[in-house]
């Protein structure tokens, strides 16, 4: 029995999940502070930059954790497990949207892009690039996009991505290669403009 209380910030994600399962509110608060923002941004990026939807997905994810903490296997990495669950939630949303609109992955071709594209040239180079990047990223097919986002945006390793998607590391690497090459080629004219401007 530990006499002196250890700060919850010092606990690992997995330990916090155990404490959360035993009803410790502080464990939940720390977990939320650690991952709510990352998760929100992930949902925001994966779900067509819809803030409200991203908020709802964050709420749904943490509600699942609260109500059914045992669904988390403590032998696994929480971060990997979290993205795995989030990714599945996105996939389910794509299916729902596909059924509703009859579009590929539920993604409307002009979703959130047209209005932003109009003002693209009035923004700085980075903002232009960012907007174009988001647009091209969303146009990628799901398996390449998720691999690319996990690796380059969320900062997961190839091994972690392979673990959460339950795919071999070679396949993940191949998907990331493809997505990277495709996006770099699509956005290469921005790089050339950038070089000219600096030159």
């Amino acid at each position, binding site marked *: 029995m530990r006499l002196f209380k250890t700060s919850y910030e010092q606990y690992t994600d997995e330990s916090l999940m155990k404490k959360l399962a035993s009803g410790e509110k502080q464990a939940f608060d720390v977990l939320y502070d650690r991952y709510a923002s990352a998760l929100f941004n992930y949902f925001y990026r994966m779900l067509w930059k819809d803030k409200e939807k991203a908020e709802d997905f964050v*709420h749904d994810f943490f509600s699942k954790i609260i109500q059914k903490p045992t669904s988390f296997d403590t032998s696994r990495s929480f971060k990997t497990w979290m993205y795995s669950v989030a990714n599945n939630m996105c996939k389910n949303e794509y299916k729902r949207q596909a059924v509703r609109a009859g579009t590929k992955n539920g993604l409307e071709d002009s979703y959130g892009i047209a209005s932003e594209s109009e003002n693209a040239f009035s923004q700085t180079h980075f903002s232009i690039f960012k907007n174009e990047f988001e647009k091209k990223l969303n146009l990628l097919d799901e398996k390449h996009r998720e691999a690319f986002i996990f690796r*380059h945006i969320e900062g997961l*390793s190839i091994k972690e991505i392979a673990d959460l998607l339950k795919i071999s590391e070679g396949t993940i690497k191949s998907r990331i290669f493809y997505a990277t*090459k495709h996006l770099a080629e699509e956005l290469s004219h921005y*790089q050339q403009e950038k070089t000219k401007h600096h030159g």
Partner: protein
Amino acid sequence: MAKDIFDSILEKDYHQLSQKELTELKEICQSENEFNVLKAFGKDVKSIANAPKLTPSVATKERLDEVFATAYGSTKKGVVFYRKGWFQLAASIVLIIGIGLVYLYTNNTPITPQLAQNTITENNVDQSNEEKSDNQKNISSEMEKDELALEKQSAAVINEKVIQKNTTVAPIPNQKETSFTVIKPVLAEKKTEVVSEDSEIAKTGNTSTNSLNKQAQEKIFQSYSAPATSAMDIQVESSKRTSKTSALTSMNSSSQNSVFNFLVVKY
């Protein structure tokens, strides 16, 4: 996170890539130009990834808190008393004070004097016993010396008187009785003195020698201060002295006279 080929693209120039990395990158770039495009793209993507992130609204957290309260209630909100901050602080203070008191108490308590006295007493007893036995040995050796000296002295006096007897005229008949009348009280007095000394010894518990030789007696008195071993020893000693004195009384009158004179001179 373990570094992979994408980190190499961002960190290295094309000519810095190892053969293994070049082979690995062959799938996406075959020239330096292509590599540079990938590198520039990777840097921009990293900037996007590192850009300030959006945060969910406070309302989302509040809704989740409600969900938590519904799921677990408020039973787990309370912390066990011994894990509360104020209790831990109070316990720490009490512990520090307690340790301090124990430390002060143990450091200020003197060693019990009784223990010290006992040690000293034991040493003294040992020492006095040793001194006692040493004194007894000294006494006995001194006594032996005294006896030898006395015997030699007596033998010398006798020899002297024998020589005188052979060379001088016969003594006056009445002189013998007179001599006895004179010497007897002296000897008796001596005996009484010895006895009185012995009785004094028995009373006080101190040992002393009684010798006919005053020098020896003085010497013994100076050196012997050890307690008497027993009254029996004193009696034996006194009887020895008495028998020697009696031996002197059995001498002829001229010898007695000489002895008397000698004793008068001595005493």
